[in-house]
């Protein structure tokens, strides 16, 4: 594939998915710089493997899958553990809110994010992918490499744990997917 075609496809993918992927990555890792690094890595990998993509839907699934996987890798990484250890150590000295915590406490409307933050990653991922990225259960199952039933179960449990209530219409819409 020629360079100008590659550039065009990458630019287009960044225009369409860049904003949501960056915000999704931030929602999962809670670190602006890391979220930007993750999204950069995802788009570069996409650029280098462009020949693999034929349809728009596979690109979308690929980009979201890569983003979720990169976020998972970050939590396994030494860099993250180092941050966590230093945070833990600092709580023994004096408790100080992180900028993110302070931000989340600013307004009541962020209570949902606070609740979601406390969820295990597997529930957090499906809720953000379904409600924020507006992906169907089938798409999420492809992204997370699990069955549709697993996604539905995680969605239901995640909603319950996050005290998410939904209107009848929303429940119907979720079932339809």
């Amino acid at each position, binding site marked *: 594939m*020629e*360079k*100008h075609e*590659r*550039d*065009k496809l*990458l*630019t287009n993918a*960044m*225009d369409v998915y*860049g*904003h949501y*992927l*960056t*915000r999704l990555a*931030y*929602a999962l890792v809670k670190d*602006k710089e890391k*979220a*930007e690094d993750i*999204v*950069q890595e995802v*788009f*570069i990998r996409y*650029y*280098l493997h462009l020949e693999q993509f034929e349809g728009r839907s596979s690109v979308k699934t690929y980009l979201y899958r890569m983003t979720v996987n990169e976020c998972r890798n970050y939590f396994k990484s030494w860099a993250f553990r180092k941050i966590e250890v230093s945070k833990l150590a600092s709580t023994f000295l004096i408790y100080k809110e992180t900028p993110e915590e302070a*931000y*989340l406490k600013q307004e009541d*409307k*962020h209570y*949902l*994010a606070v609740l*979601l933050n406390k969820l295990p990653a597997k529930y957090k991922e499906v809720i*953000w992918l379904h*409600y*924020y990225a*507006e992906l169907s259960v089938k798409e999420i199952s492809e992204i997370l490499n699990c069955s549709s039933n697993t996604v539905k179960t995680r969605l239901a449990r995640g909603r319950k744990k996050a005290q*998410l*209530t*939904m*209107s009848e219409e*929303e429940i119907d819409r979720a079932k339809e997917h």
Partner: protein
Amino acid sequence: MPKNIKQLLDESIPADITLSEENKQKILRKANQQLQSTIHPRKRLFRPIFSTLAIISLLVILIGPSLSNWFSTSSSFNTPLEKVTIPNDDYSSFIHSIFIKDTNELIYADNKTIYSYSLTSHSQQVLVESSEDIDIYTLAANKNWLIWGEKNNNIYILNRKTTLQKEQKKTVLGDIQLQEDRLIYNDASGYKQINLITLEETNLHDFTGIGRNSKAGLYDNLLVIPEQFKSNNGNTTEFYVYDLTTLKQIGKYGAPYKVAENVILMNNKIYAAFSNEDENSPILGYIDLTDGTFHKIETPPFNNYAVYKNYLALSIVDKNTDTVKLYRLENENLEELPTFNKIKERLVMPRFTDDGALIVNGESADFSMYIQDVE
């Protein structure tokens, strides 16, 4: 509880968390760099083969007076084609090198160093050694000035005559151009000009479109800035022409193409590789500034081009690859010149200097560059 969960989730993330235009440009650059390094893997993978070649090359170096050779061609230029081979640096440094005809030197950068290679003495000189990574996409030079950006968003301005260096905090998006004592650059909001003597900054153009597919074109005192706009009949590109002496907009022209790449201002014409999404290969066309008419130039399929007066360099597509050929342009008809015919390696990145020197990069193992002065 509010029912719009998406909105609630969105509001829980700070508003500035997004993929900015600046970051998109950075990603595109890094992706390009990584692709290049994939295409041209490091030679150490073939160390056993190349160590033998290296010994032979060393003997050649010791015997020969220089690594640069003068090539004679059957073309009719006053100056023959020159091959330049710079040892000990790699392709990614040379691909964006700048040739300055006045001083007969090539300026290029690697991670933290900017070099000058004299084609007269065939020697390399370090111009700048930085503690930060240099952004090679924000490198500009002429005989009087050297400008470069670093990853910390600082722009450095070095007066090459006085060696006086100044520093400016700027968020530059990558289009940085020098014209005598003027520096033109863009940030997220538009194009600006800095007078390098006084450091006075003037706003030239505010962006109103949805994006750009090309750097601005600059020639003499004219600057042309392309912008893409959405319209009911599909996207179009508008070109804004500025007089850098008066700092006033002197013209606005449109073309019914979504994409206008590699915009070049030359011969009082705005050249670009135009394309729409549903077209496979771009077309080469120009807008005549005298009457605003659009003209198409019939070319073989190409991936890249450069134009100077009536000379046109095209990266001609051949099966799965391409290489540069030089043409003389007469009344929109092309006459192929034999300038590069004897070169077997693939040639890429054709670019003309303001004063008519064409530079192309070769893709042989020694990453030679070729310079043809067409004046």
